[in-house]
């Protein structure tokens, strides 16, 4: 048995369509079987509500008198991109305010406008014959903009890897606060209710398909940026009229220590055309798996700490290596349900009919990493290779002599096999002279917890370590923890005036 989109739309118009949410569907399929569910259900509504950084809005403010060609535009001190026509601009959700930093940004402007609050528009121009005006400052309301068209380049991630931190300090990430030693796990996504998770092969979601966006009727523009449906990480570009949106489904947020983002409510109604649609909409939280990514590793390919399903994540605790770790969601499952329920109401009442894609999306698309042609500086290019070390069993006096001779403040300490086991600084030695009680040997006064770098590490990451731990040198070690050099704050000077500033 198959159903056509026309048949489904006829039923919707007659008010006879059977509409269920994606959370209700698995149970229906379990009870009626696939054929039975196909006969019974016409539309499955999906919904998600979470942080979607890649969001923003095109504005047309109307012409002032005398007119201005806005070259730079700020809305409540948040810059919008004005490199388009005279009074058009695109405001990105994550742009920070020039005055209030991460406490206010593009997302907050969008929420303020949607809430009916007035926003200060400020713009500058060099002035032209056709647009003589050079500056403007005025209050605007959403209702007075000619257009406010939300266009979100990447929304509705099919699923998203969870986040953990195996390191020894707190991390503030776009996945929220990650406690050290795997103290917690955070995740995002509506799982069972997620639009793309209910159509992973992109059979019914594609260009031109109607959707729920921020409480208004919107449309899928097409493939989202960085879409990777071939690996289970599809995304969508969506659009809708900001003027019709509600703050219930559009909320500005700040990920502390990271920046501003926008929480967006997005839902897509899925027409149940055939057995394949029944199968894909029968997906459950138990069936959707993600990796727990270790954010303590500061590179693109972060290792996985384990694999978990959304059901496990949503239970509040997951087990990793025999230990129970608490989980936090960053998206709101409650609001995702509200989106799916409201959308269900729209279709049931005939307010929204369905459409098939005018053009299908490519389910084979895979996101690729950047092909860098110029590699940034690595530690080995600026580190000091002549590095004095000292044995842990040497007298403190010898360490002092070596520091003096080497004109350095840091002395890595090695054991009998040449493996790094500690570090002593001129400060440690001075302390030992003032308080001689601790012992006479290097091992008695050295710091055993040494922050290190490697020759291949990016200088940017090494600098981040120096800042974070408030230290001025990093021993450079190879895989066997042998000291091959040292990177001090002084070496960073080599970056300036050199080949890296091109």
């Amino acid at each position, binding site marked *: 048995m198959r159903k056509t989109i026309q048949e489904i739309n006829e039923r919707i118009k007659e008010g006879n369509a059977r509409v269920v949410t994606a959370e209700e569907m698995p149970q229906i399929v379990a009870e009626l079987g696939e054929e039975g569910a196909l006969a019974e259900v016409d539309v499955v509504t999906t919904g998600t509500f979470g942080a979607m950084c890649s969001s923003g809005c095109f504005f047309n403010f109307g012409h002032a008198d005398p007119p201005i060609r806005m070259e730079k535009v700020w809305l409540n001190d948040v810059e919008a991109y004005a490199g388009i026509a005279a009074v058009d601009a695109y405001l990105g959700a994550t742009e920070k305010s020039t005055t209030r930093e991460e406490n206010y940004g593009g997302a907050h402007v969008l929420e303020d406008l949607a809430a009916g609050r007035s926003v200060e528009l400020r713009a500058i121009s060099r002035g032209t014959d056709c647009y003589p005006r050079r500056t403007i400052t005025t209050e605007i309301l959403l209702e007075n903009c000619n257009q406010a068209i939300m266009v979100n380049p990447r929304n509705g991630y099919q699923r998203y890897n969870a986040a953990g931190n195996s390191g020894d300090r707190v991390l*503030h990430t776009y996945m929220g*606060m990650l406690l050290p030693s795997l103290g917690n796990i955070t995740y995002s996504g509506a799982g069972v209710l997620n639009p793309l998770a209910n159509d992973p092969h992109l059979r019914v979601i594609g260009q031109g398909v109607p959707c729920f966006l921020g409480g208004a009727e919107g449309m899928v523009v097409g493939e989202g940026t960085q879409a990777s449906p071939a690996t289970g990480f599809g995304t969508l570009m969506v659009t809708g009229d900001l003027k019709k949106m509600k703050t219930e489904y559009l*909320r500005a947020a700040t990920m502390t220590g990271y920046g501003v983002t926008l*929480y967006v409510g997005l839902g897509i109604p899925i027409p149940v055309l055939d057995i394949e649609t029944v199968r894909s909409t029968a997906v459950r939280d138990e069936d959707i798996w993600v990796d727990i990514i270790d954010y303590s590793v500061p590179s693109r390919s972060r290792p996985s700490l384990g694999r978990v399903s959304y059901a496990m994540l949503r239970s*509040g605790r997951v087990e990793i290596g025999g230990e129970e770790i608490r989980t*936090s969601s960053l998206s*709101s499952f409650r609001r995702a*349900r509200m989106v799916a329920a409201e959308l269900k109401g729209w279709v049931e009442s005939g307010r929204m009919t369905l459409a098939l894609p005018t053009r299908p999306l490519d389910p084979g698309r895979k996101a690729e990493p950047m092909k860098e042609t110029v590699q940034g500086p690595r530690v080995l290019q600026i580190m000091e290779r002549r590095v004095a070390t000292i044995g842990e069993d040497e007298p403190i006096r010898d360490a002092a002599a070596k520091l003096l001779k080497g004109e350095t403040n840091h002395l890595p300490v090695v054991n009998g096999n040449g493996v790094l086991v500690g570090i002593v600084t001129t400060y440690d030695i001075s302390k030992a002279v003032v308080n001689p009680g601790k012992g006479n040997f290097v091992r008695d006064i050295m710091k055993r917890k040494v922050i290190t770098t490697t020759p291949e590490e990016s200088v940017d990451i090494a600098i981040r370590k120096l800042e974070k731990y408030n230290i001025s040198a990093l021993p450079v070690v190879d895989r066997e923890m042998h000291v091959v050099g040292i990177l001090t704050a002084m070496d960073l000077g080599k970056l300036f005036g050199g080949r890296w500033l091109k």
Partner: protein
Amino acid sequence: MKLLVTFSRKEGRKPIIAQVVRDTGVLVNVERALIDSSEGEALIDIPDESCRIVKDRLTDLGASVRILEEEIILDETECVDCGACISICPQEVFSFDSDFRLQMDARKCVLCGRCIEICPHRALSRKGPA
């Protein structure tokens, strides 16, 4: 019951909490303490029935004592029930009910401030001055 105890250390280093434990015989659980050279602040947990006797003795020893109740305020118009606060709270103050609505048991709170700092929607705040 949780008490926030603040005391001056100007008159020397009196072991004020130890003194109270010895005098009252009540086992005091220190949940958080910030003590520097001039003043100290300790958040202690004691059995409800011992509140009066501990509070009086602390006051006699020169400390000021405030009973902590519902110190963390959740602004329900800002909260979207994301749950970011749940796993970072050392006291497990936050949880979801069966409808995934955020629940808060503020009596467990020890005022570490972590949830206020990280709430993406700035929906959490601390009641009144410390």
